[in-house]
């Protein structure tokens, strides 16, 4: 269901079932609020403001060492740390789930260094940090969605030179990507990209949506919430302001189509949500369940209440 987890840097064990909690007694006095020092926060904040002003453009920043290894969302963590305040309520998801080791570690980290409230409920969160999914519950104006990004450059598989990709963005020359998608169609009869599907932001910049399923791409379009992206290893920040046009690249005769498994969730019955295929036993038994655990739990609870 979720990606394989390595050991937790915080020594946190996965713990499900905590729906809403407050840091033990405010932030740990041993840390500056939000862990980062004020100089680093200011630098990240300036980068964030420019990123919002130039939707989809990658802004370089001086990424810092974090107490979690790269691949654990250090870019997203630094963005969250620069934005979060005592009045926020934080939700952290990893491929839709609140209870993986990665999500639990990041949530505990922020509870410890800020003392903020945390939640698993999408609707209650003011900041949602995510790895590889957009929640099913539509986001609203008061919310900020922070994506953990492993590779911010959408052209990197097609053009390895950073100097070249920078020039292509400057000229809005995205013919390489169009050719790649067109070759997909010639070879497979359709565009064979099911996640990290490139988008155009505000009709100007080609942007990587991070490795979310292409199914989630339409949720980025004119989203009422602010979307911020942090890539720690690659030292880039980018953003999509609220209500901004986000289009998945496609062709007139091969329009973009978000795909999901043609099944209902085995737990809540949803036919709208994005599904993960889960192995249920060692004899090859399988079932489909929602990847968004909060969405699925909420629907199950509603169904039980109705019975």
């Amino acid at each position, binding site marked *: 269901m979720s990606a394989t987890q390595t050991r937790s840097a915080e020594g946190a064990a996965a713990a499900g079932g905590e729906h809403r909690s407050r840091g033990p007694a405010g932030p740990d006095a041993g840390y500056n609020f939000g862990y980062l020092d*004020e100089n680093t926060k200011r630098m990240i*904040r*300036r980068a964030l*403001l420019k*990123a919002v*002003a*130039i939707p989809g453009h990658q802004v370089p920043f001086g990424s810092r060492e974090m107490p979690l290894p790269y691949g654990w969302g250090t870019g997203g963590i630094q963005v969250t740390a620069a934005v979060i305040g005592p009045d926020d309520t934080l939700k952290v998801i990893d491929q839709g789930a609140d209870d993986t080791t990665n999500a639990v570690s990041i949530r505990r980290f922020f509870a410890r260094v800020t003392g903020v409230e945390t939640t698993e409920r999408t609707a209650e969160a003011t900041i949602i940090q995510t790895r590889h999914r957009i929640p099913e519950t539509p986001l609203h*104006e008061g919310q900020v969605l922070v994506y953990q990004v492993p590779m911010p450059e959408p052209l990197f598989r097609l053009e390895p030179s950073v100097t070249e990709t920078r020039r292509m963005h400057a000229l809005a020359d995205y013919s390489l990507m169009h050719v790649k998608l067109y070759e997909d169609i010639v070879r497979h009869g359709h565009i064979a990209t099911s996640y990290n599907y490139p988008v155009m932001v505000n009709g100007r910049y080609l942007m990587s949506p991070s490795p979310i399923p292409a199914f989630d791409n339409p949720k980025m379009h004119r989203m009422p919430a*602010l979307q911020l992206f942090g890539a720690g290893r690659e030292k880039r920040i980018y953003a999509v*302001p609220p209500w901004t046009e986000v289009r998945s690249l496609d062709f007139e005769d091969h329009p973009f189509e978000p795909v999901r498994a043609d099944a209902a969730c085995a737990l809540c019955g949803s036919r709208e949500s994005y599904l993960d295929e889960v192995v249920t036993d060692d004899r090859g038994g399988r079932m489909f369940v929602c990847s968004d655990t909060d969405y699925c739990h909420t629907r199950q609870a509603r169904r039980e209440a109705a019975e």
Partner: protein
Amino acid sequence: MSATLTAGFADPALDAQRCFRAVLEAMARPGRVQRIAAGPEAPPPLGPAAATVLLTLADADTPVWLDAGPQAAAWLRFHAGCPIVAAPGEAGFALACGAPPPLHDLAPGSEEEPQRSATLILQVAFLAEEGGWRLTGPGIEHEHRLRVDGAPPGFAADWAGNRALFPRGIDLILCAGDRLAALPRTTRLEIG
């Protein structure tokens, strides 16, 4: 601290976070007016919003140009540690309490690095979310209205020229007393 210098932030981490969040919200939703909680005691003509924004965002890495006089410059240099520059074109942040420099005198960034552009902090007499400018663009669902009293004459034309530079361009933070609003370079402005 010198006797002529008034205090900066009471709680640097939390005061800066609160102000940054207001500026981020303002930049993400152009024309929405934000209020700054109790700000530092800055020397006049520096108002609470403009002073708080500068303490939140400026430091040794950001050259600042300002027209607010030597006392305000000294206060800012002491609390933010930022270099003060004489030419608006060299500034990362330009603060105008009086008539601002023309937008094309400020650094617009390059096509490859449009983020290396100046942010103009313009102090005006009054800001409100009714009447006045009609704003459209990213961050705005349909249209936001912003009343700005004390904007320089000819500003709308100057802004249209700035917008035409996209992705290069200046971003604007308007401050009035404890209120602020922002116009990123993407915002289309029509006089109401």
